[in-house]
């Protein structure tokens, strides 16, 4: 019988009827961070996650908005406040330096590229904006070359006691699809 199954497998196809999901308008709800650190709109159907233990340890406060995975990679928007006491970055310049350049301080080439850092405004707040595109391998320890190209978009907003980062991470194939969600979050972003 297993042999029969193998025969069937050899002629099987998985073609199903093409299904077009209905176009849904993304609903949003207001999110307010503790201590009035920031408020923004968050998409209703995305998961909101916080790690309070990590926040108190690293002095980095924020939320992760998780959208639908694609191409074996997450679609995420991070809205984060890095206090002056944070354990990771000296200041906003350090953050920008590390996220807008390759390991050698350049703009990358081939499958790793970093765009220029530009001044901009995020809901009337002065900010730095830059993007990157990188090929990420899904199996760092094996010979498999399976990979996904991810794009990231950053808004970095320096303030007196630290800096905010609005960070959008998604596989390139769906980056544009969910970009309006990121813009909605960013355009509604307010600090204390």
């Amino acid at each position, binding site marked *: 019988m297993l042999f029969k199954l193998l025969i069937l497998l050899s002629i099987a196809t*998985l073609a199903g009827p093409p*299904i077009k999901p209905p176009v849904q308008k993304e609903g949003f709800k207001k999110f307010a961070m503790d201590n009035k650190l920031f408020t923004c709109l968050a998409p209703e159907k995305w998961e909101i996650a916080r790690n309070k233990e990590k926040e108190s340890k690293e002095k980095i406060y924020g939320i992760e908005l998780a959208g*639908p995975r694609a191409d074996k990679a*997450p679609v*995420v928007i991070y809205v984060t406040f890095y206090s002056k006491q944070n*354990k990771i970055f000296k200041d906003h310049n350090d953050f920008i330096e590390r996220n807008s350049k390759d390991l050698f301080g350049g703009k990358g080439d081939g499958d790793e590229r970093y765009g220029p850092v530009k001044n901009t405004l995020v809901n009337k707040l002065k900010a730095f904006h830059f993007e990157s595109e990188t090929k990420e391998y899904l*199996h760092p320890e094996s010979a498999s*070359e399976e990979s996904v190209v991810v794009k990231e978009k950053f808004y970095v907003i320096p303030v007196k006691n630290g800096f905010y980062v609005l960070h959008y991470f998604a596989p390139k194939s769906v980056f544009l699809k969910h970009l309006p969600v990121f813009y909605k979050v960013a355009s509604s972003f307010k600090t204390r």
Partner: protein
Amino acid sequence: MKQRLSDKTFAAITALLLAACSASILFAQVMSPEELKILAEYEAEISSANPSAAKKFLEDLNLVDKVKILEPDRAAALVSKAQAVIDLETLLDKKWNKSHDHELSLALSIRIDFDKPLGSVGIGPEPETLLDWTDKYKKYGDAKNTLIKRGIRQFEVVFGTDTVDGKVEWEKLTIRERNTMLAEKADMALNTLIDKPSPTDKNFQDKVKNYELFKYLDSAGRARLEKYLKQMKTVESSKKSLSTPQIQQLDGLAIEQQMYVLGNIFDNSRIKGGAVIELRIDALRQSRPGETISYQNNQLLSGLLQTALAREIKGTKAGDRALKFYQSRGKLNVAIESCRGCYAKYEPSSNRIIFDSELIQQYMRVKEITAEDLVKNKNQLGLLAKYLSPMFVHEANHQMQHEWAAKRNVYKPYTQEDEIEANSMEALYTIEKLKNDAKFSALFTNMKKFSTYADKRLKLAKRFEKNPSLFPDAARQMYYYGIPSFESASSEILKAINEELKRRKSLSKEEQDRMESSGLGSADAMKMTIRELTGSANELKTSALMKIRDDLLHKELYAEHYRNSTDWSVDALNSISASRPSKSRVPVL
């Protein structure tokens, strides 16, 4: 004058006091009839996998705490079931792209199988029970229902609706077993293509790339498919530099033979651009006789490499951390063997760090050196050690994790947290070496063009450097999505142990004694993987089950270990100077 209490009075007062104490203790511990009724209702609903009831139960903290005190086994079982149901609901409620049935299938296969918590609430191991559950509790739309059917590899979806031959047998298979069968079939199909005379034109490449069956390949199969596609691409691009007679030499050959012939054609040729093409071919083809590592050279090289690796990592933060371990507690034992698809691994059973022979042979082909060269030439050996050193730091961390658990005599499942730690240390090491070692920098800058291994080391380091706080997310959601977290692994193991202990309570004393005398003990249990432990809980002694359960209930011990290593790696990265590593001006080696 004081009057002494009579003995009778003293006894009466003591009795009263004791009664009062007992009453107050009893009052605090006993559940009210109402609470017992609610608990029974929760149990009934959760046992039929009602997600709303599961959520409500877990949020009823007063009740949960009470049950934990009064009946810890009952509480553990109910909490485990409730968490499993909520976890499943969360997984399926997510927005899934319709083309991601394979990803969904893998996620479902680790939840719906033999000896999984969902089995105790009526979901699995038969995959179709999931459809009963979605029908009852979730009103998903057509698109999602179709995706779920594809994810569980429903018979009609895989084989179509024209036949029912084999349906009964197929429906007895778990999702994991169905995927394994499909992977085997895909592997057979791939082997057929690779072993036969192979076209290499773009049309054929696209057909192979888009062949529906290949999406079921497991990770080793996918690696072979990717290599095959890369080889075909390389053959096609090489043809532009070849004469007609040379191209004709490739006709009618299987792909590996074509690569072999091309290697000979480009070897020391004067073809324009041939050097770069040759390197690409050398990286992708199999080794010729003379390019492999003989048994004798393997023994020599392993020993020499062991010393060279220790020398190479010295002076770096992550490297010194590993060396301190080897100097005080650990034994370093390096071997070169086929790793079957991985670059390197730590093998606890033999306490060895094994480097993949094909990884080293590929390096040798690209560098045009032999095993003899490595054995006789210290510089060449040193460069190989440099090349392998990031993986050495990675695997040394796995060895340290095993030693940590052994020293404390605790069971440690293999989880995402282990890889987050090892990858963080590897990335930290790479960043420091790129900054301070020009030869290391030049080697990897050059090799990344021909070797995915080298490219991966750099990309991993960059992901860590960008934001070490978010690096664990990347590891969990991209690199190690298929491995359980510690929370998930311990929950699964605890559920299996609790069920087995409950089963044993119903056995006769003779049966229980027999199990205790003939069953596997703690020493064997501690070496088991998650799957082995959950699958053979009934073969372990009760004392072994209790030991593992006690270990995993002390979660803080494990959490503290992982937290400490994260803190260490972040502090180490900060202390490495802010100046960026420079692109090395050392000429290509």
